[in-house]
């Protein structure tokens, strides 16, 4: 399936934004419902849930980055340039995800 490079450029940080909202909403809801006090082994249910979301988001961004690099249709210069920008933006989104959400592993949740 051929995806417009414009869509590819936008996708990475739209996913990052959605993950930001989802993580905050999960954290606030979990704190309210006391999920931080339920333990599964060494970690709380809330931290495990947030970590799962974090890993899924990284996997999604990684998959998109990989698929953006697989584009074989290099029919036009513009398309090639945009594809290059899209892969760079995906890298930036992955790095941003790693940096901005890393606090969920070590900060007090509630």
């Amino acid at each position, binding site marked *: 399936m051929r995806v417009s490079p414009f869509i590819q450029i936008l996708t990475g940080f739209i996913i990052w934004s959605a993950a930001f909202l989802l993580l905050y909403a999960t954290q606030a809801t979990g704190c309210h419902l006391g999920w931080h006090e339920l333990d599964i082994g060494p970690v709380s249910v809330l931290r495990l849930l947030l970590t799962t979301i974090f890993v899924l988001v990284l996997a999604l961004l990684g998959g998109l980055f990989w698929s953006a690099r697989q584009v074989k249709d290099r029919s036009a210069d513009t398309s090639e340039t945009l594809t290059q920008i899209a892969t760079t933006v995906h890298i930036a989104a992955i790095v941003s995800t790693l940096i901005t959400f890393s606090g969920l592993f070590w*900060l*007090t949740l509630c």
Partner: protein
Amino acid sequence: MFHRPILASVAPLILASCSGDLSALDPAGPYAGAIADLWWIMLAGAMAILTLVIVLFGLVLFRPDFGRSLSAKGWMIAGGLFLPVPVLIALMTYGMAQGEYLIGAWQNEPVMARVEARGAMWRWDFRYPDIGADMSTTETLHIPAGGVVEVRVTSADVVHSFWIPRLAGKIDAVPGHETVLRIKADVPGRYAGICAEYCGAGHAGMRFTVEAHAPETYRQKLNALTAEVPAS
């Protein structure tokens, strides 16, 4: 020649503006001290970055060959990624660690007193569950000096923000929700507090006073207040 005496006379004036009843740069306890440290670190960092940029700019102006060994793309990567990213990561990590310290996550220091602060348009009411269920004061919060005081903050109407600049950071007072802040005054004294979240026409006047008493007289002072006996 002349700039030394000028600097010597101006510096105290500038530094004097850092003190005062509502100055976060004049901390009177460890929590406010941690925030002041962060502020000074950010100031020093900002000055270092500004100096670096000015020096680079000066070199480019006065030595046109400067920097030719690095391509334009190289300069963009160095100045746009290699310089700011580590600085921002370090600052974020330090800030988060300070935040953990401020909410008491990494401390074993015992809590000396627990108080409740309730914001309402436009005043602060305080309760003292440690001492008595009916113990309360308005506009003045009494705490023991030299120990950690845990303040549970809430609101009766809109969102307010509880802030004693010389003792701790801000914490929101949210209706229907309780937020927790730790404060500590090293020595007995009076400290000013304000509402730091715009909350309507009376926001600017929504002030309060913190009176830190010597631990041995704290309970006595509060008991005297409720018995309506003027505390000496």
